[in-house]
């Protein structure tokens, strides 16, 4: 049994064992992978969701409203428990009814699924609002010049919605990075879980929880800086700059 009580802070946070620094960074890396993958899938869901909500038929619109309303009103923690514990049961019942082999959902897949579903719902609404804020005349001008719908989306709608959507999207990214902490409840070794393990093993609770907090803070600061640069880029031509 190691004597953690008398170890220095530097030794406790050292990257190599018996220090816990490496374990924390591995946890951070896993958190970022889940947040990143979930966010990117969420962007795809949200982007298509917004377009379908605006231009789709009544049935599509109703289904999407169900999705965004449900996901936005259920706590993320409940969604995680549902998808990790109840999801596989339902899926495997379906698979065995079809005579297919059972599958297991790893905490990683469950985590990415939850983040993607949640982000997708919020991003749908952010992007829908941003598209609706574009003056209809700008799109009419493009149509009147004979541009194709996809060209109009790529060259006019997308660049015009970004200045409105980016502040919301950057908020959602920060929320995604911190939602990963909830995956600790299903035993996924992301940053918060490993920090708690380190704290419990060494009894240095304050040190390791603060270290985890600091890592989350660094991620936020860097993300903010990147999003601000992106905003400056997409805001060119806007009168308020």
């Amino acid at each position, binding site marked *: 049994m190691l004597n953690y009580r008398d170890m220095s802070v530097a030794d406790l946070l050292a990257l190599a064992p018996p220090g816990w620094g490496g374990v924390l960074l591995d946890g951070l890396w896993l958190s970022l992978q889940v947040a990143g993958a979930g966010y990117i899938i969420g962007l795809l869901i949200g982007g298509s969701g917004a377009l379908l909500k605006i231009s789709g038929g009544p049935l599509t619109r109703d289904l999407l409203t169900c999705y965004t309303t449900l996901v936005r009103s259920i706590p993320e923690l409940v969604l995680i428990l549902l998808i990790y514990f109840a999801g596989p049961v339902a899926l495997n019942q379906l698979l065995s009814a079809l005579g297919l082999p059972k599958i297991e959902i790893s905490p990683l897949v469950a985590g990415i699924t939850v983040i993607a579903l949640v982000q997708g719902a919020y991003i749908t609404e952010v992007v829908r609002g941003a598209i609706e804020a574009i003056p209809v005349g700008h799109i009419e*001008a493009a149509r*009147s010049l004979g541009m194709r719908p996809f060209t109009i989306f790529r060259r006019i709608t997308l660049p015009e919605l970004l200045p409105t959507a980016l502040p919301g999207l950057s908020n959602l990214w920060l929320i995604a990075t911190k939602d990963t902490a909830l995956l600790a409840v299903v035993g996924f070794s992301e940053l918060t879980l490993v920090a708690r393990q380190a704290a419990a093993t060494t009894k240095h609770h304050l040190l390791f929880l603060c270290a985890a907090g600091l890592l989350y803070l660094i991620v936020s600061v860097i993300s903010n800086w990147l999003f601000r640069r992106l905003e400056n880029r997409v805001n060119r031509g*806007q*009168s308020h700059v």
Partner: protein
Amino acid sequence: MNKKSATPARADQPVVDIRGLRKSFAGIEVLKGIDLQAYAGEVIALIGGSGSGKSTTLRCINLLEAPSAGSISLFGTPLQLKPCSTGDLQIADRAQLRRIRAKLGMVFQNFNLWPHLSLEQNIMEAPMQVLRYSKGEARDAAHALLERVGLYEKRCSYPATLSGGQQQRAAIARSLAMEPEVMLFDEPTSALDPELVAEVLAVIQGLAEEGRTMIIVTHEMKFAAQVANKIMFLNEGRVEEEGTAQQIFGNPNSERLKQFVSSIK
């Protein structure tokens, strides 16, 4: 009237031929059967009070507004229309509509320049995306057009930094970049401060003198009288009277036009 779709436009055939155009919004009929023929080189001014249907008529020509009934022939080819679920007509062949739109330049009341693109990029966009011009060709054409409307020095500015008059001149350059056969103007000076109206009208007048075919919805009666070969007075969704400027302003027949003419004097 020639209805055969394969026949190219002849000199004696209107380039824009609208028959029996009707349009309802939520059950209220705003166009009650408009006929409009524009021949190559003609300048037609649509005038009338607000709500008379002049802008809606113009917007039906390139189908920014879906007509409820009627036929539209452009350059000798009828637009293929079919009824849709809302009761309005919709285009049956989207590629045909895009081809036709590319030949109809539209200038809007609110300019509608794209705010994320510089003036030069605004003008280059459609020629590159629709006509597949190379970047160099599109830029050369854009520079020539900006020179022409007096905005060459502003080519790298964004629309938000320009006055309304400058934005509208750039918007005219944007539609000219497609080398349109017909220009449609939807109240091009109505959103401008009074002192900026003249610079935009001068550009439009220059286009008229080149012999371009144009249909102009306007409230500038003096201007309409100057540039238009034919003036159509719309009232409550009908063409109340049409004729030369002299007939319309000098010798109005209908009671409504007499009122309108005296109210603007």
